[in-house]
């Protein structure tokens, strides 16, 4: 019975193993020497650290980052479409163009919405 679960176990081991190996490698490969305050400080090539270690960023950064991800993802759909476009345009005709355009249209609505809501306006 239990040996039936071997594939499951292997999958889990692989997932855990990958994470473990990565963590282990970073421990082994990095930070090998002894640490002291002098070594941790910026040396000749940077500013002395000032302020909080984790400063609060303006929420605008997140908005921009999110918008970037959203509009970036559309390429995932457009790229394969572009690849097969030539073959399929013979079958479906111009329709295949309009299909993709409807998708882009939805994105356009999102873009217009973001624009009107001043999500792209850095100064306000």
């Amino acid at each position, binding site marked *: 019975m239990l040996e*039936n*679960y*071997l*594939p*499951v176990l292997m999958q889990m081991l692989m997932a855990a193993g990958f994470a473990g190996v990565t963590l282990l490698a970073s421990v082994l490969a990095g930070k090998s020497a002894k640490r002291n305050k002098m070594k941790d400080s910026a040396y000749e090539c940077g500013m002395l650290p000032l302020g909080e270690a984790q400063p609060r960023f303006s929420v605008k950064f997140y908005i921009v980052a999110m918008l970037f991800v959203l509009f970036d993802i559309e390429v995932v759909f457009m790229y394969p479409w572009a690849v097969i476009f030539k073959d399929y345009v013979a079958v479906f005709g111009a329709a295949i163009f309009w299909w993709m355009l409807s998708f882009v249209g*939805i994105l356009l*609505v999102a873009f*217009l*919405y973001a624009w*009107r*809501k001043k999500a792209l306006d850095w100064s306000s």
Partner: protein
Amino acid sequence: MSPLSLELGLGLLGLVLLLVESFASVPRKLIAYAAIGGLLAALAVIVSGAAGSVPDSLKEFYVVDPLALFYKGFAIIATLATIILSLEYAPIIHQFVATHPERTKEAGLGEFYSLPLFVCVGMMVMASAVDLITIFVALELVTVSFYVLVAFMRRSAASLEAGVKYLILGALSTGLLVYGMSWLYGMTGELSLSGVAYKLAHWEGNSAPILFAVGLMLAGLAFKVGAVPFHIWIPDVYQGAPTPVTAFLSVGSKAAGFVVLTRIVGTFLTPGSVVAGPVIQILLILGGATILLGNLAAIAQTNFKRLLGYSSIAHAGYLLVALACIHTGGLKMTSGEVAAFYLATYLPMTFVCFLILSAMRAKGYGEDIASLKGLGRANPTLGLALAIALASLAGLPLTAGFMGKFFVIFATVLEGYYTYLAIAVIGAATGFFYYFKVILAVYSKPDGPSEGPTPDLGLLSKVSLAVFVAAILVVGVYPDLIRFALVK
């Protein structure tokens, strides 16, 4: 007319409304009315039976059977009720969204009226989806829209907290679900549910990986419907979210989870399936635990919204047990139809509770059970409506809620699951206790010496309140009203 065009139409309406919201400065109420109009039109198409079939090329992904049409109608009604509820709740939303509430009048309301449309589209697609990818995409459309709605009151810490909790646990459950789906696909090589069912029925060899996939998927869906032990997020999220969204979550999101569960469980329990036994066991244990914990934990609640949260957990338990009872021939209903019937009875009573809660909140009352005191005298109509809805939630005979429980309990008798029959009975008895606590509050004298403002509802809300209360009473004595819609 293909039902798919309904979904496209409603989606388009949502997009247009978003554009109107951002470009034109129309009164926000008009946006809500436009959404209501669109939903009513879609409902008319579904009820009239004009929604036909889909082209053969889509049948792998998208079916139009009575169950799908039923859930589509369900989604539309739930969305309609939510938007009407939102109109009632608008002042509170505005207060917690606008930067300067005293200067603006309707900031942030446009999106609040149009986002439910996208949830509706997601639920409607989900009702028809018979393909793992389609199911997943539709489910995500629902969930992502809900992330926004739950955290909508951005100046209310409770709403934000609810949003974050919902986002994190929602993402986790989605991860589990997708991981399970990928295992299932990996083992069977099929994405369509019919293909998976065929493979499961003719499976030879090692079934453990499939069980693993099944377990992951059921865990993911259990999160969505709020089954014990994946229910922890429910009370906090329900309490923190804006009241219309809470209502929508407890009805819409739950129904969405259950339509997917119905389809997927139906696939797993296909005759000859290798995983049928364990799946039934899992459903029963989840259901039993959910009934017990949901009901018992509800006893101690003092906040009405939180109590409704626990009650929604408890109801999910009955639904899970219903799904596990597959030999329901005596009822002339499949297990999925019993669950759908239960959900249909659950909709009106929940919305009545939330409508009245909104009315109270809009007049400055709190959300505690104690703040309901005196409602029976201040506004007898609302008091009676609430009492009827609560009696129905408790499952008293001659109300819709009893018919739902009746079918589930009957199904367990037919199946011979006496343990779960006992659990269902214990749960229902516990329900009596805490629902009656609320009814008692409604008819008690208010604590304070002076009487507060009388809670009241707008015209649209009054109409929907009347419709829902009538539905509770009529279905209570004539359940075939819903069954005819369900069983063709």
